[in-house]
């Protein structure tokens, strides 16, 4: 309240000055990444002076292509199509993976039968699934759903299984001494205990899913970022190829940010991390 009062008393010139100072301090706090990206952009721009534009287009050309995509509804539709495919596939893989992971966590027999198989499947490269899907299915959406299911389901199941297994027996005994119903045990211990694993699984799978969906879209899709990348390659339009990639990365970063935000909200109870290797 007090700071608001003081702010309103400032003259416009002083207010602008204060705003500049704040902007500067915010930028100064993030100076390292700003410098890194600045150096990369500068180096790219310099390279573009010496190399033909169809190999290394200038930063301006890329920016123009980027704006063209973001400003156009139909083009943005391609990005949303790809993102939609990623999310639908992930949700499907998440639901089935969670069910499997929970069964594995509670039934030793299920665990013994499925764990080795899941580890084996995890060893199969995502690209192999793309090839199998193209051979097995003719419909693009079926292919993509299959690839995401095959690539991400084992990952979800393993992380959830691990999350359940890591719930300490001490907590379990403490609650059992209170005689909860099965439902209460699940809602008071298992579910909250699983949340960190669930968030981790989404972070891991989002990146993986984006990579394989783009590759899957290169074959047979008539919409989506993968399809647009293929067109750019066929027409030798490097600015567009880069711009499409940047748009996709932007959307993925936004998704990651949403997960980080959820993590911040849901895992408030965790002690703050105390420094890393760098400090």
């Amino acid at each position, binding site marked *: 309240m007090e700071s608001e009062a003081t702010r309103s008393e400032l003259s416009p010139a002083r207010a602008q000055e204060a705003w500049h100072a704040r902007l500067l301090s915010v930028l100064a706090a993030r100076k390292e990444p700003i410098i890194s990206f600045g150096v990369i952009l500068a180096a790219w721009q310099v390279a573009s002076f010496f190399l033909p534009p169809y190999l290394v287009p200038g930063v301006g050309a890329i920016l123009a292509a980027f704006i063209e995509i973001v400003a156009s509804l139909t083009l943005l539709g391609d990005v949303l199509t790809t993102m939609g495919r990623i999310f639908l596939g992930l949700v499907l893989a998440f639901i089935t993976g969670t069910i499997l992971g929970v069964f594995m966590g509670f039934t030793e027999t299920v665990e013994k039968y499925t764990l080795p198989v899941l580890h084996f499947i995890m060893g199969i490269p995502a690209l192999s699934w793309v090839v199998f899907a193209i051979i097995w299915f003719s419909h693009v959406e079926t292919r993509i759903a299959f690839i995401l299911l095959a690539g991400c389901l084992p990952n979800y199941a393993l992380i959830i299984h691990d999350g359940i297994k890591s719930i300490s027996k*001490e907590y379990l*005994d*403490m*609650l059992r001494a*209170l005689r909860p*119903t099965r439902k209460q045990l699940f809602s008071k211990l298992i579910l*909250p205990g699983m949340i960190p694993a669930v968030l981790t699984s989404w972070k891991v799978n989002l990146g993986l899913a984006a990579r394989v969906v783009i590759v899957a879209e290169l074959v047979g899709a008539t919409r989506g970022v993968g399809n647009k990348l293929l067109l750019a390659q066929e027409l030798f339009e490097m600015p567009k190829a880069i711009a499409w990639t940047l748009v996709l990365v932007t959307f993925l970063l936004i998704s990651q940010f949403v997960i980080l935000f959820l993590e911040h909200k849901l*895992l408030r*109870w965790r002690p703050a991390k105390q420094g890393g290797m760098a400090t």
Partner: protein
Amino acid sequence: MNAADPVVQMQDVQMVFTSVDGDRFTAVEGLDLEVGSGDVVAIVGKTGCGKSTTFNLLLGLERPTSGSIQLLGHDPHKEFDWFRSKLGVIFQTDRLLPWRTALENARVGLEILDYSEKEQNDIALQWLHKLELQGFEDAYPHELSGGMRQRVGMARAFCLTPEIFFADEAFGHLDQSTARRLREVFLELVTESRKTCLLITHNIHEALEIGSRLVILGKPGHVLADMETPTNATRAEMAEFEDRVLDIIEANEVVG
């Protein structure tokens, strides 16, 4: 059940664990124990004498290989659900759920009993305040000191107004002065409740301080000695008593 009937009754209890390789390990053998209503009994013994197994058996978390266990005339394992809200347990480590605040941890037993949210909060707050945790109701476990966390653990047990209290090395991991202060609080609250209390500990001092009766366990879990703790004893008499207890434990060590 008559008032004179024992609250805790263990008869010839045996607990044998079999490992995956088929190795058998006897943790408890021929354990007989009776505790009357309102008694405060300390169970002492060295590490590995089956104290924790006995504790889990009493809570009904494990089924004995043979023998019978009755709490309040019921079998804690076979009649598992009968014991809803009847057992108040304080564990060695506080076992607070890390994603719950002090208040949410304290009321977890009341949630299981389906109390209304208002009742849950009223009762839990009352106990938290009684245990001097005002101002920390919304703190997460990692924000509390070890002693405070154990107080929350105690509030969780006392909230239920249980029939029997169990404490398993409840003060063992705290520093001496905190442990001493908490022991006093605990004893005061248990005495006030007039309920039966079983305290398991490896610390003879603690056993003498809290229990009016001392049960010494030997390896594998059986009763070596069962005696009244001296009341109004002088320092020297207390030391002598302590020596006697230690002698009994050590004699069992040599034989074992």
